[in-house]
């Protein structure tokens, strides 16, 4: 095997300082030490200054010694990750190889990852061999499955066993059914959203396999200094047994994560860990994670049944269990296919119910955005405000029920199920600890108006400022909190003379839902009136100015009562969700 180049380094080029970089003090001290050292062996030899040996040998050697000492210090600096973390690197090849010894990123996570949407022509159960390969051009990807066995795809409406390699098809309209799967592999040319894959095994009824989002390279986009900092943070341990370890572990497994944190018993937002009779917290850890695609906005056509009555009780509402491909973080709108002018928004005529599928594992709002959450939508037949006539026409299916088609536009994190699956994998799950992967709680920003001052004649780079502000809001995550100063910096760089204020309208969305159903509440599809009666409205936390964006903490004040929802947010699980269009500017010229 050929030796790597850093085994035979060019010490002079890599580590030696220039002669001019050596200080007089360094050289003089080196000469004194060298003279003292040599005189111990040859006390009779004249090495004083002005002597031939002193001036012609000892002094040049003093330069060499001083340079070697500096080079030695630099080499040790490359071994000291604190120095490397500060960007002081002399031999990048060596440092890269050195860091590899710590396994900052293991081989699996260095592979590229992505989400592939499988679309089938028939609603049925499928078994997909876990060895199936997806070919995107010259790139080959394998299924990323965290549990034993093959990938099981179940038909629409199925309830799969949790913590298995199971997916459920969702009706996406046009007689097609889809689910997302996660793949990993080596990526030469980039795979971007919309690229179509070919598969090496025959899968009947498979219409297409398409990249849902741009694939992550898997290569940490970090500089060596950032890698070194991560190494220092992680070397203490990278597993799921403690808060920092869990964070380190997931960052290593999923380098493309934009945010990750964990709440443990004792944290304000850790509401699952009740105190037992002995006064001891149950060992429960909530791992919050979001990928760089956490605000992926997508739309899916769904069919919603119109109920005139349930058990002879008049209902007159559209009600459906929401069966979309992803776990929605926030539903932006529901639009009628038949009449696109009819658009329903959460809390504006649109009711969205959430209920946990496992009250023991993820009670109430702790199930939000996870595999344990079921969602229902419900709304009245939209009416013409002046004539009172129905704005939508419904069709009738074979069993006589009325329905209409709608397009649900929602945000979700395509990578989150892969993270959740990894956290629950038997290979890494700590014994005796109840782990739950959860998405960050989004603060949905609907207005972000920056009021700035500019000098007359100044050209403002507002596009640049907008991009920077958006990037800042997206990446701000634990342990950092929002700071207006960062917005000010962006505005100054864009040419502003001053920033006067930031006008913000935002709301914490505990879940995509507007109403929380207790575990024993009725299914709205069966008994809407009863479900509505049992539903609890989660706290409304509105944010009206920029300083409140750095939300310190908000815990459901009704915990312990019948109206508890387990709504909880603080710096550990807070993120911002916004459409770039909501960032606007207001200018004052002076």
């Amino acid at each position, binding site marked *: 095997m050929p030796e790597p180049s850093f085994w035979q380094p060019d010490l002079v080029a890599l580590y030696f300082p220039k002669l001019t970089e050596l200080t*007089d003090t360094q*050289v*003089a001290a080196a*000469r004194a030490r060298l003279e003292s050292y040599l005189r111990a062996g040859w006390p*009779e*030899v*004249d090495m*004083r*200054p*002005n*002597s*031939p*040996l002193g*001036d*012609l040998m000892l*002094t040049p050697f*003093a330069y060499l010694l001083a340079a070697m000492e500096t080079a030695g210090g630099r080499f040790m600096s490359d071994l000291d990750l604190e120095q490397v973390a500060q960007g002081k690197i002399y031999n990048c090849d060596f440092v890269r190889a050195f860091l590899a010894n710590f396994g900052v990123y293991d081989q699996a996570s260095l592979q590229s990852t992505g989400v592939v949407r499988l679309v089938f022509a028939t609603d049925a159960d499928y078994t997909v061999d876990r060895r199936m390969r997806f070919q995107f051009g010259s790139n080959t990807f394998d299924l990323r499955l965290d549990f034993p066995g093959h990938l099981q795809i179940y038909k629409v409406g199925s309830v799969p066993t949790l913590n298995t390699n199971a997916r459920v098809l969702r009706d996406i309209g046009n007689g097609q059914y889809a689910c997302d799967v996660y793949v990993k592999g080596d990526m030469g040319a980039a795979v971007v959203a919309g690229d179509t894959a070919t598969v090496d095994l025959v899968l009947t009824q498979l219409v297409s396999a398409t990249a849902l989002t741009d694939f992550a390279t898997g290569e940490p986009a970090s500089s060596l200094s950032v890698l070194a900092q991560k190494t220092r943070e992680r070397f203490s341990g990278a597993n799921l047994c403690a808060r920092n370890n869990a964070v380190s572990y997931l960052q290593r497994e999923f380098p493309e994560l934009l945010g990750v944190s964990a709440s443990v018993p004792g944290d304000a937002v850790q509401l699952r860990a009740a105190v037992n009779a002995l006064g001891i917290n149950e060992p429960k850890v909530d791992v919050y994670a979001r990928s760089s695609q956490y605000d992926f906005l997508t739309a899916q056509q769904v069919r919603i049944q119109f109920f005139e009555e349930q058990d002879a009780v008049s209902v007159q509402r559209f009600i459906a269990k929401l069966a979309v491909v992803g776990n929605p973080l926030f539903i932006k709108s529901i639009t009628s296919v038949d009449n696109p002018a009819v658009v329903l928004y959460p809390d504006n005529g649109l009711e969205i119910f959430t209920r946990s599928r496992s009250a023991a594992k993820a009670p109430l709002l702790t199930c939000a955005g996870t595999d344990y959450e079921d969602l229902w939508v419900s709304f009245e037949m939209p009416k013409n405000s002046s004539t009172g006539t129905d704005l939508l026409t419904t069709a009738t299916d074979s069993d006589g029920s009325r329905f209409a088609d709608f397009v649900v536009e929602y945000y979700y994190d395509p990578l989150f199920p892969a993270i959740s699956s990894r956290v629950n994998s038997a290979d890494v799950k700590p014994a005796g600890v109840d782990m739950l992967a959860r998405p960050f709680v989004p603060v949905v920003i609907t207005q972000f108006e920056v009021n700035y001052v500019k000098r007359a004649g100044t050209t403002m780079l507002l596009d640049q400022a907008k991009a920077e502000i958006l990037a800042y809001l997206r990446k701000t995550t634990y342990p950092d909190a929002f700071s207006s100063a960062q917005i000010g910096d962006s505005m100054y760089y864009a040419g502003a003379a001053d920033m006067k204020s930031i006008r913000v309208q935002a709301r914490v969305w505990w879940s995509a839902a507007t109403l929380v159903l207790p575990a024993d509440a009725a299914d709205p599809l069966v008994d809407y009136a009863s479900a509505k009666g049992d539903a609890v409205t989660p706290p409304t936390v509105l944010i009206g100015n920029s300083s409140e964006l750095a939300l310190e903490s908000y815990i459901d004040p009704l915990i312990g009562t019948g109206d508890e929802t387990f709504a909880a947010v603080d710096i550990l699980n807070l993120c911002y969700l916004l459409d770039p269009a909501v960032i606007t500017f207001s200018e004052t010229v002076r």
Partner: protein
Amino acid sequence: MKGLKLAFDGKGGLVLTDQVVEDEACLRQNAAVNLAQIRGSDRCFPDKGTRLLLAGVQGIIFDTQSAQHEANFAALDTLTFMQVHEYTEEVAKLPTTVTVQLTGIALGKLTYRMSFTFPEAAVADTLIL
């Protein structure tokens, strides 16, 4: 104390690798090197050297009086340097005086006679700059 012998031929010093000088001879040739060296040219010893050569080159020396004047300072600087940088156990062997006497002045050439008074005997060398 032993060192390699230096030969001064009026064009600079030549190291004679096959000849050894000892004790006072070492001190004398070291002093001569110091006298002719420009002060500040050695980064290890900022006080090493004298102004003599530079004064000659820069035209500060323009007659016998100025030549002797600069030589006196150079002699004093050299003696001081030797006293400061001598090994502790060798200090007693240092010359008590160093004298630099102008012996000739011609176009492009100054000739000095360097004399030392050692505790045991006085020795003189001739140095041509």
